[in-house]
């Protein structure tokens, strides 16, 4: 056991190293010094207190979206619609935040609650059709992303636009703010929410009867059905939960960082989260680390553009290379294995 996981971890590390090496070659090719680029990245990600907080700030939405993805994956559901749920959750939280004055604390909780509800509601139709008619949820959630983004744009610009200025809603009331953790950073309790969710999810999956059922539904649905688990309902619930967490991610961003909803404010977090979860092989705890890794890369890249001549897209390229080489798992997989074997996720 120990040996296996050790091999897996060292496999990951070597894979990352291989990707960084390839990245270095590319950096050389665009005429920059890899050493300088990587040092700047490190400095940008962990250089000082503020930078570390910035990295954690970047990590937060990726982590929460990652947990949303994990929950779905555990129950055999591929929620590619986290992006859309995040947008709707973000908008819903903002709406409660600016339109309904409530006492402090309660206001924030109400806003988060509506974000959760919005996320869950947005995935409800795909989830229903998946559970009832086995409609592929990958497609329906991908497509509903586009609708969600356009819809929130519509709400923002046509219904709730803040007078003057950019396409955004009016600012939310301070009573709905998610409190910050440090005064030198926008880092807020969203990170804690993310960590609690991750550990909570891991515990629930491992130590509760319900979690056992969900895991079985995900890995062997016919067996679960045979064992008396209501597979359809469980699938529906899992997608709904995943969507709810996706919505929460949006709520956290709105209440913790932006304090208003901006049209198109966070493209790609849903996908980042999904990839973080997939690289972590669906494990919520491992997702903490993959999300942190992505967060650090992103935050580091912000300094990169200022301090070196390299463009941030280089980091996108390196990030993609890392994902590719980790996914290849060059070391831990045996090559001669039959191709006929089952795959973990099949469509």
């Amino acid at each position, binding site marked *: 056991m120990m040996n296996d996981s050790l091999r897996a971890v060292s496999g990951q590390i070597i894979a990352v190293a291989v990707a960084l090496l390839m990245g270095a070659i590319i950096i050389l090719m665009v005429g920059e010094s890899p050493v300088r680029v990587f040092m700047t990245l490190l400095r940008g990600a962990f250089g000082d207190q503020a930078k570390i907080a910035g990295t954690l700030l970047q990590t937060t939405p990726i982590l929460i979206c990652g947990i949303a993805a994990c929950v779905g994956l555990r129950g055999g559901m591929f929620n590619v619609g986290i992006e859309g749920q995040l947008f709707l959750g973000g908008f819903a939280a903002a709406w409660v935040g600016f339109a309904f004055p409530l006492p402090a604390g309660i206001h924030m909780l109400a806003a988060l609650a509506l974000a959760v509800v919005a996320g869950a509601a947005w995935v409800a139709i795909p989830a229903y059709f998946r559970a009832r008619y*086995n409609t592929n949820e990958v497609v329906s959630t991908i497509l509903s992303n586009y*609708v969600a983004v356009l819809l929130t744009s519509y709400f923002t610009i046509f219904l709730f636009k803040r007078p003057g200025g950019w396409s955004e809603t009016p600012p939310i009331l301070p009573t709905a703010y998610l409190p910050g953790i440090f005064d030198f950073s926008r880092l807020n309790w969203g990170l804690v929410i993310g960590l609690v969710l991750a550990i909570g999810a891991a515990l629930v999956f491992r130590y509760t009867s319900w979690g056992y059922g969900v895991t079985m539904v995900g890995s062997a649905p016919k067996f679960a059905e045979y064992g008396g688990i209501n597979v359809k309902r469980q699938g529906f619930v899992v997608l709904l939960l995943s969507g709810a967490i996706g919505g929460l991610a949006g709520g956290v961003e709105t209440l913790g960082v932006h304090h208003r909803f901006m049209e198109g404010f966070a493209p790609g977090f849903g996908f980042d989260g999904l990839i973080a979860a997939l690289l972590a092989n669906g494990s919520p705890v491992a997702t903490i680390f993959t999300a942190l890794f992505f967060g650090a890369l992103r935050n580091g890249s912000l300094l990169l553009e200022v301090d070196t001549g390299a463009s941030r897209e280089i980091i996108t390229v390196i990030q993609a290379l890392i994902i590719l080489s980790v996914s290849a798992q060059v070391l831990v997989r045996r090559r001669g294995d039959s191709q006929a074997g089952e795959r973990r996720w099949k469509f």
Partner: protein
Amino acid sequence: MEILDKLVNVALIAATLRTTAPILLVALGGSFTTKAGIFNIGLEGQMLAGAFFAVLGSIWTGSALLGVACGVVAALAFALVFAVLVVSFRANEVVVGLALNILAGGMTISLMKAIFGTRGSIVGQGIVGLPKIQIPGARDLLGSWVSLISGFTPIVYVAFIAVPLLVLFYNRTRLGLYIRVVGEKPEAAEALGISITRVRYIASLLCGLLAGLAGAHLSLGYITMFTENMSSGRGFMAVAILIFSNGDPLKVLAGCLLFGFADAFSLRLQTFGFPSYLVLTVPYVVALTALFALSYRARPRIIMETLASMQRLLSVDKNPGPDGKHPS
């Protein structure tokens, strides 16, 4: 009535054909991987790479055709990486596909910056676009309907001609048959000495070929320029169509036409004052509705099943049971 005339006319159909072509091409590409049992969510990236390198090639060689070739080669390179990782290393195809999409986005921008010194778009700069094909005599034959068959860039024709060719390919050629078998029942292929690896590589590369063509069409045919992320979700749309068509060329065509029509139609709706953001959701909502409706329809239907069971009862034994009367 006048509104309807303004909405539904030959121009709309021509527009539908134009909007359909790129999605159709990339979806037909994806048909190879879908049939071979690979879920290829990386179509978007292959298409984008194809579009970018087609423009590069066109600038460098001064020839639209060589440009297209460059685009195809680039998409093939992406497809090859995809195949190596997914087929040989058995990496998760969703992770690899998404990562290749990210890579294509980052790489085209980085290269654009490195080569042209700017981000954003490449316009002019000596890009040679594909010519429009005017079919001789078509106007005399068809009158105002001529715009339905004449005046498109060559790759549009390629896209539509590819549909029957693919039908033939899957039904009558060996490779097509193997691709289907490998996707449907890999154990069967393996047991017969059909190399799953090889077939999946070939399917991935064929997919790259068409995705590259689709990309090249976007940047040299549909319009003549490259811009960041110009594939604009068409690859994802193709993936959606692939899932509900299961990669069957005719169903792919139907799905793409539906989508292209919704797109073209909704663009026209805007001129009647509907808010753009809502109108723009139309194609996606149409696709979603189709998806849900199709799966709803696939649900067991009482009439069909009763008919079938009665038929079987009649053919198997003489005394029909209560089935006809008690459909569950």
